[in-house]
Structure formats: structure tokens, C-alpha cells
């Protein structure tokens, strides 16, 4: 059951293999689509699910591609558009925000250091600055999450600079 799109724009075979491995790790179960998309997104250098990939997954799991697009739009952790190599997710729940009232506000410091605004990507595609509602690390506030890893206690400019430099 291949759709026209997968025939017309086949994925590189190496990528197909990697996606197939993800699908198998989820037992090719279409109800696991959210977890599958998270894993497939992590394979991508720009941390998103391209349209061709979405079609490929829909074919493999024999599900409607609209279902996949619906999930990509609905869940804030999933993205149908390219992000950066390091999407910086800044926690904006009250628990994190009340810990950066004085001295350095995390977002403005990041905006200044990266020279981008919230929601934008740096010109070299390395960093995107994103605002998320809660990353479940309230006891380690102020914190950011980058590709699944939480970096905590970012209360001084030095610590934030050191974090940005430490990313390969």
C-alpha cells in the first residue's frame, strides 16, 4: 500500500533502514505513533519529521497520513518544520520563572547571547530558542532541555555561556 508520494520521492535507503529499526522497536504498532514520531524525529539532524518521512511511516504502519500530521501539529514536542541542531527548550512554568526574577533572566540572556528572539533559529542552524510549558524539573530550576537532556540551575550568565560552549 504505497502512496504516490513515497514512490515519487523515495527516502534514502540508509534512512529507511534507521526508521525501520525504530518501527520494529515499537513492534510496528500504529497506536505507538507518538513514541515512534519522537524517535524518528531524534534521527533527524534538524529534529523534525519531514513530509516524506511521514508518508513513509504511514505506508509502513498502514495508517492514514492525516493521522500523523494531526499528531505532529497537536503535540508540542513534535515538529513538522525544521528546527535547529540544538533546540533550546526554556521552561516557562511559574515554578521555573519565579527563580529567575532578579539577576539574569534566562530567556533574555539567551536571546542576547544567540542574537535571536524566542521562536527563531540562528543563521547557522545550531540553536532554536523555544518556550515550553513544563519540563518536569521544577526542583532544578531554572532549567532548559536540549534534545531530551535537562541542563539545570542556569542562574548566572557564566553557566549559560558554558552550556552553549559545551555543545559539540
Amino acid at each position: 500500500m504505497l502512496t504516490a508520494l513515497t514512490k515519487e520521492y523515495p527516502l534514502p535507503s540508509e534512512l529507511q533502514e534507521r526508521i525501520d529499526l525504530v518501527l520494529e522497536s515499537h513492534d510496528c504498532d500504529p497506536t505507538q505513533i507518538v513514541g515512534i514520531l519522537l524517535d524518528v524525529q531524534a534521527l533527524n539532524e534538524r529534529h523534525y519529521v519531514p513530509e516524506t518521512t511521514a508518508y513513509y511511516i504511514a505506508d509502513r504502519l498502514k495508517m492514514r497520513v492525516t493521522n500523523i500530521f494531526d499528531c505532529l501539529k497537536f503535540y508540542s514536542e513534535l515538529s513538522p518544520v525544521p528546527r535547529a541542531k540544538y533546540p533550546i527548550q526554556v521552561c516557562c512554568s511559574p515554578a521555573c520563572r519565579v527563580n529567575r526574577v532578579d539577576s539574569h533572566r534566562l530567556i533574555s540572556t539567551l536571546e542576547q547571547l544567540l542574537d535571536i528572539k524566542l521562536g527563531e533559529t540562528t543563521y547557522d542552524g545550531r540553536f532554536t530558542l523555544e518556550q515550553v510549558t513544563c519540563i518536569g524539573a521544577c526542583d532544578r530550576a531554572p532549567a532548559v532541555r536540549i534534545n531530551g537532556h535537562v541542563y539545570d540551575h542556569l542562574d548566572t550568565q557564566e553557566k549559560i555561556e558554558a552550556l552553549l560552549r559545551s555543545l559539540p
Partner: protein
Amino acid sequence: MQVHFLTKNFGKYDTSSIGSYMNVGGFEALRKAVTMDPEKITDLLTKVKIKGRGGAEYPLGRKWSQARAVRGERKVVICNADEGETTTFKDRELICHDPFNLIEAMIIAAYVVGASDGFIYMRAEYACYRPLLLNAIRQAKNYGFLGTNILGRGFDFDIHLYSGAGAYVCGEGTALIRSIEGKAGRPRMKPPFIKVSGVFARPTCLNNVETLSLVPHLLLDDAGVYASCGSGESIGTKLISVAGNVNRPGVFEIPFGTTVREILYDLAGGIQHDRKIQLIQFGGASGKIADASILDTPYTYEDLRAAGVMVGSGGMLVIDERTSVLDFLRMNQEFFWEESCGQCTPCREGNLHIKIILDKMAAGTATREDIAIMIKIARVMSMSSLCGLGETAQNTLMSAMKVFPDLFDIGGARA
């Protein structure tokens, strides 16, 4: 003072090895449970008055006996590990320090309600604990605690792990179920209630991580340690998570009846730089707030309710004098405006317009009429929203109006 009832195995065993768990008494509770009549177990849970620890406070004994009574094939037990309430991270500790206990608890739940499948729905932010849980499930399967004919008692049960992807609304029962079915997690109308028609239209029993985790410990608690803590409606212990402007944020297990002051000053190390407390939010973003006058109130369901707040998810957000009440309300409102799924009008539009009015208040341009509109919107939302998110989104705002009435009394000064 901290107690260790639910947390007694934290750090005591290697969380990647079932053998290590069995050395500290793992799966003894399950072995005991399968020799008991399921009704005896629900009676026990009713006797110690366990209420759902996710925030809804529904009595567990009643939930399980109802789930047991529902007629239907292939029932389901779901563990809600979505924990999206801000300032709530107690389930995270239970998953990372005692994963096997959760697996054992789900098997006991399956035995009691007669379920054949279990689902754990875990938020994407906890993805780093996925391998830990998958390993626990696999090992439990190898040892015959999952699969067919468990412990020779003729019941079959299997556990599947599902991942969320950053949607707060998926903590709501019907939204969570849609998400497990592989769809976008938008809540639906009730009835049908999920206990009758839940995930894949099968009868479903949905429980929070902490609620489930309590059960194995309770079954082995012959000495009645749990029942000796607390009194009245609030028996036993509770995991609370404290965050915000405190010196030692974290998760603590307290017996019911500990005062808020003891929690904040003895356990959480007091307020940063000994500043004054502006307000405390109980029970996460959809919880209620109080000012410093609540410090000597004992932490129980009854006393907190009398003081105008609630236990909810067990989160406590402490905010010091540097953040104004209005700024806090705006942050909280922004959270709900972001997280509303946009399906029903009261929640989608209500959250937006309350956000606008709060911004106007901050800018000093709000009028008496705006405040009246805001109160009206908040009431309409709580009465007519589709799901719990919209119904509870204005809890914080409404309680702020009671605790800090001066803030909202602006008409006179401007006229």
C-alpha cells in the same frame, strides 16, 4: 518530619535488576494478593481511605470495586504517568527509584479488577526513564509475573509503555486514552465514562503512579504503619513536591497532619535569603493559592479545604515577595492559554480573554467592568468546559480573588 513508607525501597535495590528487587521483598505483595479475595483488597483500600493522588481525590477502593463490577471483556488498567501539573514531580521519583514496585502494583490492580492489559502513559519529558521501565517489564515477563497464567492463578496480563509528547491536556482521562490509541490527545465528552468504554472501547481503570505504588506496600503492612499516620479523612502518608523560592526543593514523604510550616522550613530548608512568603500554590497549576497565614495549618484534606486550598497533585509552589501576585497569575494564565487544546469555546476563548484582562491589569488600564467580565468568564469556563482542564483552569484566579481582594478592587480608585 519525613517518613519512609512509600519511599522505603528508594536506593535500597538496583533498579535494573528484578533479583535485587526480590531481595528487598519484591513481588511478595503480589504473591499475597493472589491468595486473597479481590473484594478483601478493595475493602482494605476503602478502610485506609486512599484517595486518587493525581489530583481528583477519588476514593481508590470505590474506583476498583466499580471497575471490577463493570461487565465487559478484556478490561484495561492504565497508569497515568503524564504528571503535567507544574511543581509536581513526585511520580518521577517513584518511577526512577522504584520502577518494579509500579509494575507489581499494576499486576495487583489487574488481578483485582480483572484486567488483561495494562498501559503506562508517560510524559515525553521522562523519556530518559523509558529504558528503565521497559527493562523492568521485560524482566517481570521473564520471571512469569507478566504473561499468561500468572503465578499459576490462571490470569493473563501484559504491560505496554506509551509515550506522550508534551501535551498537558493528555493527563485528562479521555485525552490520555485518545493518545494511547495513536491519535491527537483531544478530550471527548463524557459519558460514556472510561470505566465503561475507555481505551479501544474497553472498560478502563485509570490510576495515578503514586496511588498505584501505594498498594503493594499496603498489602504487606500488617503492622498498620500506614493507618497509624494521620486521622479522619486523611490517613497515611503523602508524597509532596516543593519548588519555587525555597532553599531545598524536592520530593518529601510526610505523614498527613504535618504543618505547612514544617514542610517549608524543616524539609524544604526555608525561603531563599529568608525573604517573606508572597503566596503558596497548592496542587499545581490548576490548584489554589493561599498567603503566609496558612503556615500553621496541618497538611490534611480537611484542613486544607477549610483554608480554601486543596491537596490536589501534592505540589507546593512557594513564591517570595519578589514576584507580585499579579505577575504570578499572569504566568499561570499563560500556561493554560498555551495548553488549552482549543477544542471547546469556553476554554479556548476564556483563557485568552482572561489573559488579556490580566495583562490590562498589569498595564493599569483595566476597569471595574473588565474585572466583572473576567469573573463571569471564569464561572462560565468552570461550568461549561468540555474537560477538566477548562473546569479547573481558573481555580488559582478565583482563590486569588478571595485571598487578595484588594488587587481586584480597582474601580473605585480609577473613577
